[in-house]
């Protein structure tokens, strides 16, 4: 039924046994266990008791990061040694593509929560529509607007007066992050953030064109600019969080507006840091290691896809969290 043929396909490189997976497992196990313990110490623990949760977490995280560093190093060395056939390279491309797809779905969960809460739950809590009975039974006097200016808890006069249990007190923000005074538009941070991140996507693309032409100088320059723009974005975002906590009264406790605002922008910010680190490593590889040629630069390409993905998420964030 079958005949052996090696004419069409090159040999697929199946790596020798590797310690990477088991080391990464140990690192992941320690860091997740440590992280869970830290949070439990914080919420349920006795403040007087010393625990070693932070130590476990840091040891685990260090071990995990070191393993990933070694792992990527091996993968890069294999590629430089010419072990990767065109077919294997396609596996990496597919892997990165579906990884980004899974990230998209992660953000979709948070955007879905935002839409559901804003368009259905808010009006229901205020007594509208088919879920409206909640208002008379539980949250008498709550009126809904977005960004939420008064949480249902505040509407009934605080946690002591509310008829159901929950986990703490939710106070609404004094001011929202939405666009404020038209006269001072240039002080609106999200707009600058958008400009910075969108231009960094363009500069990454210019760097990509550079490497496709084999122009390493152009590549290094524009990739470096992209990393700097990424850092600028993170800096502005830190400033924005500072403003939110210090001057807007907007915190994680600020009801559902604060929850969705910080979770969406927070996870986005975390992904920006990851993407920026990836781009920075590619830049160092290119400048210090002399890696990448016009037809072999997947490490950069994957990082740039990730960067564009982070950018697209921001566009939706800007639209649904800040503007609408």
């Amino acid at each position: 039924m079958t005949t052996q043929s090696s004419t069409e396909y090159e040999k697929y490189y199946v790596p020798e046994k590797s310690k990477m997976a088991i080391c990464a497992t140990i690192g992941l196990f320690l860091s997740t266990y440590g992280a869970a313990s830290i949070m439990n110490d914080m919420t349920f623990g006795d403040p007087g008791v010393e625990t070693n949760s932070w130590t476990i977490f840091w040891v685990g995280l260090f071990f995990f990061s070191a393993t990933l560093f070694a792992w990527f190093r091996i993968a890069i060395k294999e590629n430089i040694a010419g072990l990767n056939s065109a077919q294997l390279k396609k596996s990496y491309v597919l892997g990165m593509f579906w990884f980004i797809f899974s990230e998209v779905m992660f953000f979709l969960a948070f955007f879905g929560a935002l839409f559901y809460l804003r368009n259905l739950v808010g009006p229901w809590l205020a007594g509208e529509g088919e879920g409206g009975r909640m208002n008379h039974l539980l949250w008498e006097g709550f009126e809904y607007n977005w960004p939420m200016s008064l949480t249902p808890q505040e509407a009934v006069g605080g946690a002591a007066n509310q008829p159901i249990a929950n986990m703490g007190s939710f106070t609404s923000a004094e001011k929202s992050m939405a666009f404020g005074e038209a006269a001072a538009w240039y002080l609106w941070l999200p707009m600058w953030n958008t400009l910075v991140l969108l231009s960094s996507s363009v500069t990454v693309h210019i760097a990509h064109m550079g490497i496709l032409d084999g122009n390493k100088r152009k590549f290094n320059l524009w990739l470096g600019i992209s990393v700097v723009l990424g850092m600028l974005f993170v800096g502005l975002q830190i400033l924005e969080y500072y403003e939110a906590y210090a001057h807007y009264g907007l915190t994680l406790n600020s009801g559902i507006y604060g929850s969705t605002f910080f979770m969406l922008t927070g996870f986005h910010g975390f992904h920006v840091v990851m993407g920026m680190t990836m781009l920075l490593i590619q830049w160092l590889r290119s400048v210090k290691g002399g890696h990448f040629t016009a037809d072999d630069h997947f490490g950069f390409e994957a990082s740039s896809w990730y960067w564009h993905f982070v950018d697209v998420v921001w566009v939706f964030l800007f639209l649904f969290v800040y503007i609408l």
Partner: protein
Amino acid sequence: MGDHHHGPAKGLSRWLFTTNHKDIGTMYLWFSFAMFILGGSFAMIIRAELFQPGMQLVDPAFFNQMTTLHGLVMVFGAIMPSFVGLANWMIPMMIGAPDMALPRMNNWSFWILPPAFLILASTLFMEGGAPAFGWTFYAPLSTTYAPPSVTYFIFSIHVLGLSSIMGSINIIATVMNMRAPGMTYMKMPMFVWTWLITAFLLVAVMPVLAGAVTMMLMDIHFGTSFFSAAGGGDPVLFQHIFWFFGHPEVYIIILPAFGVVSQIIPAFSRKPLFGYDSMVYATAAIAFLSFVVWAHHMYTVGMPVAGELFFMYATMLIAVPTGVKVFNWVSTMWRGAMTFETPMLFAIGFLVLFTIGGFTGLMLSIAPADFQYHDSYFVVAHFHYVMVAGAVFSMSAAVYYWLPKWCGRMYNETMGKTHFWISFIGFNIAFFPQHFVGLAGMPRRIPDYALQFADFNMLSSIGAFIYGASQILFLYNVVATIVAGKPTSEEKTWDGAEGLEWTVATPAPYHTFETPPQVK
């Protein structure tokens, strides 16, 4: 670098450091069986408590921990990893690939599972006990009222999700990129097709589950109010997000089982699979529909009527592609030269019992009727017909079907058939009566019940013990086969079996298809 035409490494390092799809598949299979025994022993405690009305053996809080962990361990520890193990073993051999596309990541996907379950199982010994909010972990039970161990539960779910996502990416890359020349998509064995579609589902919904548990984590520790109405959130939001993951999840469990049955029924009917193309399209249709039916798990939460109607009709629509599949399996057997070895018995058992589970699912999909059935033992009966008689029966079938290829030894047929009949009878004694007590109003997840349910519950417990015991026989048969089974070197163990895996030597060499075969 040179070729490595060598066998496995010696000792423990073979398993810890391996990049071989067969080794990794073996580890997945053994791990999932260990979890099956663990989750099964939780079930035995549940059934022992329910043997008679009144509080008998355990206190209610521990009973709740048992139902919760039974569900979690069976879904995430037993069924899902078992099919991933099967995928690891069979997909490269079925499509003529030398290994999985990303072999080191493959090893990592497996090895993060045992620590994740170690964390989950260790919650049993923590202050406040293990999670006791049901495997669906609805807020606010899992947030406001949860024991402190919930944090560990959340992180173990994160790690399990990571494992599933990496495993699925690997399967997608393997199937899309590593098929042998001539192995076009529409020539792939059904098992490969069902796994490809399952992997898409996993990559799409595991991140959503990660989002759900992250929101829980934030609500518990950092003061957000996603699931708390006092801050403008909604506990029902949790259910929407959970079931957006959860409904595709049940197809993630059952689609590979469909694939296994689609391999085995043609082999023992000595006929090609009837309606191969329609099988592929039906699988894709089921996967697509699984994204738009989630709220049928939550008809009673007070959704708008328009929502109830949409989810009811969308759910009923799934019966159409599923019906296509059942029709095709029956038509494959029609006028076939059938024999009834153990894999075929399990496959036919699957076909009959899964169809019953599918029909009770159709009953549950009717929104007005579901107000009666919701959270009753009828639901428990329904999903055990699908999960146990569906997924686990097909897994047993798969083990008997491919075991000779894996280890070059033949299992004991008499013992295999005995295993089937005891399982089949025990399973039906355990779960068929639960339809009746459920329709009569016995709620699920309660350690005590009204006296009129006593007889059926005792019957149910006896059946569960029989089914549980039959798994010991299964374990014995498999171990005996590996250690001392009758050696066989026939390439084709079953004369009706088709596919590339039956063209390689028996037992399958450590490396297969280092140069791809030409498929005509």
